[in-house]
């Protein structure tokens, strides 16, 4: 079947470029320029899917992005399948596979259609009233069935084959919508030389001009005017024209988000091309020329395939050269449908027009249409349709003074309906502009703006073409700061309509199923039921009935729903108000929002200068904040346990080497540096000598531990501060905050040097011997360079800051060299240490070794609720200092109360048993639940050096419990532990100076 409904001439499609795609497996022929919808119609297909709830046959209602019904799954190849595409916006292209949804086994025979028979039960909100008994059935039976029935299309199953791009852009004037109003606005703004961006969601700019075949503007055809306007804009450097670009969100401070569809329409797109591009535009001024949406009429069985919007019928005929039917009835309460009827008639179709309004209200249009040979029935209502898979007739009846006369069936294969127009105020409303109700238009129009924005054209409630052009030009000029005024001449547009809610009917309204929200299957009856049940707020009506909550967000239905609510409540429409307009205007792919932030670009992976060496030497890595750190270095055949045990022993018995480059480093410089340190740390700093180091502890103002680290004094006015890896940014921020805002009088500057220095920790009894031949300018002897000292000199010819510090309890050095030298120095140390069996170790061994010594790790022993005293570090607090950040809070009642959790060591009865970190501790495992928990295990390891497991824990009143037995949870029950001092190895601390 080859396009039997295609007109021989006309339309904007490119007849020289035939294309083929499939719909439910069947080949469809069309032309470049078709949408899937227009091509289906050209092939006589209206039935495109099944509705959400009742599985009713549904077809194509509109010609644009407001489409609620014709939703298809689209397959553009592997990794490129997605559901719920509107047939009216998907551009037909070679090889695309479209499929109907929400039906099984087939579109024409759908088992789910039994729901339609049950529809008397399945009314709005019915599920709140039932499915409660038996209780257990909800999870196992009812809910799964409800879920399977809902949900429209099928989610993609495999990772996306496409890429997505992002672009921030700035302009003076952003014009959204490129119909006559938007084009006029762009022309006006562009002339000023200001930067202008014009975005329109359609493949071609022009909006309604794309289907105005008989109208003239300034003496030329609408098409000629359109083409000239676009050519003029395109020629200007300061203008960016963006077809296929939907402005979907209007955020604060004129931040507008738009998606550009770059490749979906192209069968030949290069692989590297992004599918979509997110534009984040910061606009000086915005002109919203987004047009208006036509309203359907609400009558019984108005949802049959073949029942469309009147203007859409016109669009398919004029723009796509497609006849949606051979015998078309228009049902309307609006004049605009007359234009549609006239154009369709001119295309050679048998046309009847039914107007709800009495003859005298209809004006001269009636005669004009009759003169073209169209039968016009004024004063008629629609009470139903014939046909199921496709409309076969429209049932109409005269209304006189509210009385419904005899029914008459007008046989037809397509219905074009129009209940008037609704300005597309979505973006205006998102911008927080106040809507004003226009009684004459029976619609909300933009009122006071909240941002630098103005509306124009039909979006502002102006429906006459001349007004659209003039208002667009004025808006564009004003937005660009120009005062230019321009008038346009154009063919007058027939405008005007009579607002109508549900159409009058002779049927029992309690039985009539007149659809308001087509996608969510909400009928006028449902709305009335909601109100009967007390859901009077429009927001309640929406949520109870789900009207306006479908993928079209009620573009075609919201005003009808509102009208019905207002009428039933007998309250004026503006006092009922609209529901809230929210982004996005039309659904936006997650991909566009994510943009390039996928895979390797999701989050930076920070690595150290020694990372590559570690990777080459088989390290396993762990994520720590954004960093990737070497975790352990298994040798062939070793598991983690064996590797860590070996690394631990190597450090204590010989020497180990550890990459500590990720430690945060801050250079604190200035005459007031020591005073600044005094105020920020619990420790005193004034007396710390140059060349000396001190372990510092820092609190938040609430008294809890924020961070710790070794601090070296390099000069009177210069400190080299280190922080934890994860804490580095936090600590610098904390310091800057106090420095700038609390103590601006201090002459101190902070500079992050985390990444300036590679840090190589060399630890173990052979550490000194390992490095001594590499170092020059530093006397490494114990006397000249004691524990907790710092020296500047050279290593391997490179300037270094050498710290004599230890996080292992053994003799240790931390070599700081400029990062680019890190790897070379590391390799040199490896070589120098070879005679001593130097062993690279990772974070896991580092953790074990420091735990053997009872050193805390901030974030592991502490958690944001822990004070210095809790972890046994109260002694570090400078007694003499009147104040430091957090000091006052340490005196709060709960922080000095007894029964706080304190750091202790734990020893399992079985030395081979390693407790779970996070395990909870109780005094009596036999107490009933809920049990009294005394604390938890913060660190727990097998210690090869101690020959047993070790653990640190925070335990209520723990320091007084030394020697006591407690019980710790295990995956299967409890185990017994003895409380002890939290130092397991070299309690006297002699090794550090060995």
């Amino acid at each position, binding site marked *: 079947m080859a396009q039997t409904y295609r007109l021989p001439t006309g339309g904007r499609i490119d007849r020289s470029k035939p294309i083929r795609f499939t719909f439910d497996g069947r080949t469809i022929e069309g032309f470049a320029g078709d949408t899937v919808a227009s091509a289906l119609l050209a092939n006589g297909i209206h039935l495109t899917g099944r509705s959400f709830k009742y599985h009713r046959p549904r077809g194509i209602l509109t010609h644009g992005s407001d489409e609620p019904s014709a939703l298809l799954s689209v397959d553009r190849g592997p990794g490129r399948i997605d559901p719920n595409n509107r047939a009216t916006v998907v551009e037909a292209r070679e090889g695309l596979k479209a499929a109907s949804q929400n039906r099984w086994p087939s579109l024409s025979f759908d088992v789910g259609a039994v729901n339609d028979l049950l529809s008397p039960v399945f009314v709005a909100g019915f599920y709140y009233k039932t499915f409660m008994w038996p209780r257990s059935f909800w999870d196992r039976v009812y809910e799964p069935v409800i879920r399977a029935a809902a949900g429209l299309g099928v989610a993609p199953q495999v990772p996306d084959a496409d890429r997505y791009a992002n672009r921030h852009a700035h302009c003076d004037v952003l014009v959204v919508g490129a119909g006559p109003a938007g084009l006029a606005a762009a022309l006006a703004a562009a002339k000023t030389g200001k930067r202008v961006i014009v975005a329109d969601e359609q493949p071609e700019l022009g909006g309604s001009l794309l289907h105005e075949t008989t109208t003239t503007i300034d003496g030329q055809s609408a098409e000629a005017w359109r083409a000239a306007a676009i050519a003029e804009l395109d020629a200007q450097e300061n203008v960016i024209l963006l077809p296929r670009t939907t402005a979907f969100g209007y955020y*604060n*401070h004129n931040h507008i988000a738009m998606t550009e569809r770059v490749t979906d329409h192209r069968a030949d797109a290069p692989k590297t091309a992004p599918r979509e591009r997110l534009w*984040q535009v*910061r606009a000086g001024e915005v002109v919203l020329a987004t047009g208006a949406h036509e309203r359907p009429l609400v009558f019984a069985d108005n949802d049959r395939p073949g029942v469309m919007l009147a203007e859409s019928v016109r669009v398919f005929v004029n723009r796509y050269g497609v006849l949606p039917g051979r015998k078309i009835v228009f049902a309307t309460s609006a004049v605009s449908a007359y234009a549609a009827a006239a154009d369709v008639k001119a295309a050679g179709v048998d046309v009847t027009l039914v107007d709800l309004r009495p003859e005298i209200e209809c004006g001269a249009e009636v005669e004009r249409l009759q003169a073209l040979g169209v039968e016009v029935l004024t004063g008629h209502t629609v009470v139903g349709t014939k046909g199921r898979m496709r409309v076969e007739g429209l049932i109409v009846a005269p209304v006189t003074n509210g009385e419904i006369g005899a029914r008459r069936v007008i046989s037809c294969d397509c219905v074009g309906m129009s209940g008037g127009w609704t300005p597309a105020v979505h973006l205006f409303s998102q911008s927080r502009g106040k809507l004003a109700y226009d009684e004459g238009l029976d619609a909300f129009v933009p009122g006071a703006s909240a941002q630098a924005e103005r509306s124009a054209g039909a979006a502002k409630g102006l429906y006459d073409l001349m007004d659209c052009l003039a208002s667009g030009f004025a808006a564009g000029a004003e937005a660009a700061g120009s005062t230019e005024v321009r008038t346009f001449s154009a063919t007058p547009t027939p405008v005007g309509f009579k607002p109508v809610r549900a159409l009058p009917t002779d049927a029992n309204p309690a039985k009539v199923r007149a659809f308001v929200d087509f996608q969510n299957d909400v009928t006028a009856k449902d709305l009335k039921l909601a109100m009967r049940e007390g859901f009077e707020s429009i927001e309640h009506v929406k949520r109870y009935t789900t009207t306006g909550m479908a993928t079209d967000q009620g573009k075609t239905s919201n005003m009808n729903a509102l009208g019905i609510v207002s009428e039933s409540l007998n309250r004026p429409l503006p006092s009922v108000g609209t529901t809230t307009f929210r982004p996005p205007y039309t659904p936006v792919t997650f991909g566009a929002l994510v943009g390039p932030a996928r895979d390797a670009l999701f989050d930076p992976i920070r690595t150290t200068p020694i990372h590559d060496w570690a990777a080459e030497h088989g390290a396993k890595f762990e994520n720590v904040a954004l960093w990737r750190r070497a975790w352990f270095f298994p040798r062939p055949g070793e598991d983690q346990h064996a590797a860590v045990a070996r690394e631990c022993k190597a450090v204590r018995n010989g020497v180990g080497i550890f990459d500590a480059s990720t430690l945060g480093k801050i250079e604190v410089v200035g005459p007031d540096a020591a005073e600044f340190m005094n105020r920020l740390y619990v420790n005193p700093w004034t007396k710390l000598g140059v060349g000396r180091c001190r372990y510092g502890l820092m609190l938040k*103002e609430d008294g809890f531990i924020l961070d710790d680290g070794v601090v070296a004094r390099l000069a009177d006015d210069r400190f080299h501060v280190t922080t934890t890896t994860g804490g580095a940014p936090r600590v610098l921020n904390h310091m*800057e905050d106090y420095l*700038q805002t609390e103590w601006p009088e201090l002459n101190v500057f902070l500079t992050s040097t985390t990444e300036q220095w590679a840090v190589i920790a060399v630890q173990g009894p052979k550490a000194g011997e390992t490095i001594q031949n590499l170092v020059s300018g530093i006397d490494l002897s114990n006397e000249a360079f004691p524990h907790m000292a710092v020296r500047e000199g050279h290593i391997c010819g490179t300037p270094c800051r050498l710290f004599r510090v230890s996080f292992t309890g053994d003799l240790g050095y931390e070599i700081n060299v400029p990062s680019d030298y890190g790897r070379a120095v590391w390799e040199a140390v490896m070589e120098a240490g070879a005679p001593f069996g130097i062993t690279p170790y990772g974070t896991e061994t580092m953790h074990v070794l420091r735990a053997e010594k009872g050193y805390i790790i901030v974030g592991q022993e502490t958690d944001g609720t822990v004070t210095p005293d809790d972890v046994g570090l109260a002694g570090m607090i400078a007694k003499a200092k009147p*104040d430091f950040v957090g000091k*006052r809070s340490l005196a*709060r009642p709960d922080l000095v109360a007894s029964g706080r959790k304190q750091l202790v060591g734990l020893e399992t009865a079985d030395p081979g048993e390693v407790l779970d970190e996070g395990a909870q501790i109780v005094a009596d495992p036999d107490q009933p639940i809920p049990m009294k928990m005394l604390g938890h295990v913060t660190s727990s390891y097998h210690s090869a050096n101690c020959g047993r497991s070790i653990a640190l824990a925070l335990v209520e009143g723990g320091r007084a419990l030394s020697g006591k037995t407690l019980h710790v949870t295990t995956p299967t029950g409890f185990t017994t532990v003895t409380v002890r001092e939290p130092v397991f190895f070299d309690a006297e601390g002699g090794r550090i100076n060995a």
Partner: protein
Amino acid sequence: MLLIDCPFCGKRPEVEFRCGGEAHIARPANPFAVDDQAWGEHLFVRKNPRGLHAERWIHAHGCGRWFNAIRDTYTDRFVETYKAGERPSVDLSEARA
């Protein structure tokens, strides 16, 4: 995304900034001179108004300076921004939304 007028750099996008909460909360010169109640309030109690609000921002991914702003917490519009240590030109005690 807000557009924030850094007193040093001019209008820049919100993602370059961090908000530091209510402004002009002076840290007591001698914290030990205030009782637990007052100290608790200093730490935790906030005006949290619906309307004009004086708040701290830092142009973290810009010039790195802390500064203050008056913003309407209902419309999210900035009334003004000013450097740390300066006072706003609007009288916040008058402001009620």
